[in-house]
């Protein structure tokens, strides 16, 4: 196994919960780890501790065979000697320096010729050619973020830490940069840790996600897995499962659990044996709607009949609230909604595949 970043530390504050981080990620090849969680969950503090900008009170941080921090023997390697890149939320470009001097700021010690080559290489790669003589206030948000990225990458960091790198950008720029960011880091083989509270960003960027809440790591793993199988209610809420209802297991046969939810019954796939009270999690986009009451066709697909209670337009999608013995939220395209002629009070059948229902045992 190659070198890894191994961190386990705690940072306490006078007010608010302590931030406790456990992390183990490979650092010998490109891979993006996402620290995901609501604001105030301690993501940025975790990142600052990894950079050496904040000092935890307990624990250790090791990078390969180097110890960056160890509370037990008082080791704290300053950020200058960690050879990392750090991207701040609002770019933090030096306002008194041109783009070229911003990018070259961290590599002043190397020879003139090589410095120029490296600056040219990185500005070309990041599409900054032609902007060398501008100052930060003459650049757009996307350009500023590219300059900040170039400034960090030109130093050839062993690890790039990004604090909400895209949140200050407008939507089209954000989507473009999100795509490019992965490309550049892959090309330069720089592993990264990204802090974000954006679900789309987590799914699009991350190879691995660490879900944080109230200063603690709740769950980690590949984003798809974590988003589809949250381990508990808190994670389910954070990753944005739209329907979380409590239910009671009626019976368990051949890996299929039948659960009583409100006045309806649902069949869910469950590898583990469940019993008693459970939380039923269904993502709104996993629900299909059909007009009228449709008869049950197979046991692996649930047919729940209910009444439409609300219709809310969300961009190209419509969020449909249905009362079917319990409140259910479904997400359908605007076009589908028009085609079916969905209206308030109309009777519909919600189709949910058994594997799309996630059960979380209630403590």
């Amino acid at each position: 196994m190659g070198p890894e970043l191994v961190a386990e530390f705690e940072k306490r504050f006078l007010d608010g919960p302590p931030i406790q981080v456990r992390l183990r990620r490979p650092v010998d090849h490109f891979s993006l780890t996402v620290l995901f969680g609501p604001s105030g969950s301690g993501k940025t503090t975790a990142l600052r501790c990894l950079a050496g900008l904040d000092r935890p009170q307990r624990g250790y941080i090791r990078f390969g065979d180097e110890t960056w921090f160890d509370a037990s023997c008082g080791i704290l390697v300053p950020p200058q000697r960690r050879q990392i890149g750090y991207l701040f939320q609002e770019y933090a470009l030096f306002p008194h320096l041109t783009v070229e001097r911003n990018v070259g700021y961290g590599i002043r010690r190397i020879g003139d010729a090589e410095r120029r080559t490296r600056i040219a290489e990185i500005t070309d790669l990041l599409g900054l050619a032609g902007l060398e003589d501008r100052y930060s206030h003459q650049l757009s948000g996307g350009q500023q973020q590219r300059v900040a990225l170039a400034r960090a990458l030109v130093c050839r960091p062993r690890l790039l830490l990004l604090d909400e790198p895209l949140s200050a950008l407008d939507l089209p720029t954000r989507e473009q940069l999100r795509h490019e960011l992965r490309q550049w880091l892959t090309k330069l083989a720089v592993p990264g840790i990204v802090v974000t509270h954006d679900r789309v960003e987590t799914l699009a960027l991350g190879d691995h996600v660490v879900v944080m809440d109230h200063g603690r790591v709740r769950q980690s793993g590949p984003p798809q897995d974590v988003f589809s199988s949250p381990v508990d209610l808190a994670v389910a809420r954070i990753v944005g499962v739209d329907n979380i209802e409590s239910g009671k297991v009626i019976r368990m046969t051949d890996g299929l659990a039948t659960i009583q939810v409100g006045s309806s019954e649902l069949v869910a796939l469950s590898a583990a044996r469940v019993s008693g009270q459970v939380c039923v999690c269904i993502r709104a986009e996993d629900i299909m709607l059909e007009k009228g009451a449709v008869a049950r066709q197979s046991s692996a697909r649930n047919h729940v009949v209910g009444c439409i209670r609300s219709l809310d337009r969300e961009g190209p999608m419509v969020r449909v609230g249905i009362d079917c013995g319990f409140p259910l939220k479904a997400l359908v395209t605007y076009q589908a909604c028009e085609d079916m002629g969905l209206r308030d009070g109309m009777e519909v059948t919600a189709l949910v595949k058994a594997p799309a229902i996630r059960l979380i045992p209630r403590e």
Partner: protein
Amino acid sequence: MDIEAIWVSVELAAFTTLILFLIGLPFAYWLAVTSWRFKFLLESLVVLPMILPPTVLGFYILVAIGPMSPLGRAYEEMTGHVLAFSFQGLLFASILYSLPFAVRPFAAAFASVDRRLIEASWCLGISRLRTFVQIACPLSWAGIVTGLVLSFAHTLGEFGVVLMVGGNIPGVTRTISIAIYDEVQAVNYRGAAMASLVLLASSFIALSVTHLINRKGGYGT
């Protein structure tokens, strides 16, 4: 008009400003970034000369640099001269007296520099000292110039402390404001008016300069 006194004042102000630049800048930076919990005590101490009557400050300095004090004795042993009633003694007093006029604008300017710029520099591998010189100072230039101009102008016109610590030795410690006092005592209003005009003009120019650069200066964020 007493050209000699003007020269003593200018020389005193120049040296005071230079020394305040050298020691006040790192001190102000430390004050701006430290999270030490007794910082407020030091901040109060720095501003004290603004509130204290110059005669009180002068009295304490006189005692502190007198031949009976450790500082005065150490100076005498090293140089063979007495510190009190000398130009050097006066310089020492001026530095303390003008300290708030330098340190406060410096510290305010440093405090307004975005902390993330300093941290960004550290993360790019640049030492704390070089970050101070290359990021914090250039971004605080308006505050630094303000502090220097105010220190110079304030020292140029000081009276009470000079009288207490320096005495009134022509060509050595007789400054322009003491010369004005002497002219008035001697009912030579013409001489006093000329010297006063010099101080009035220099003070007005200093304040205009600081207001101008603080309106134009800075880089936004």
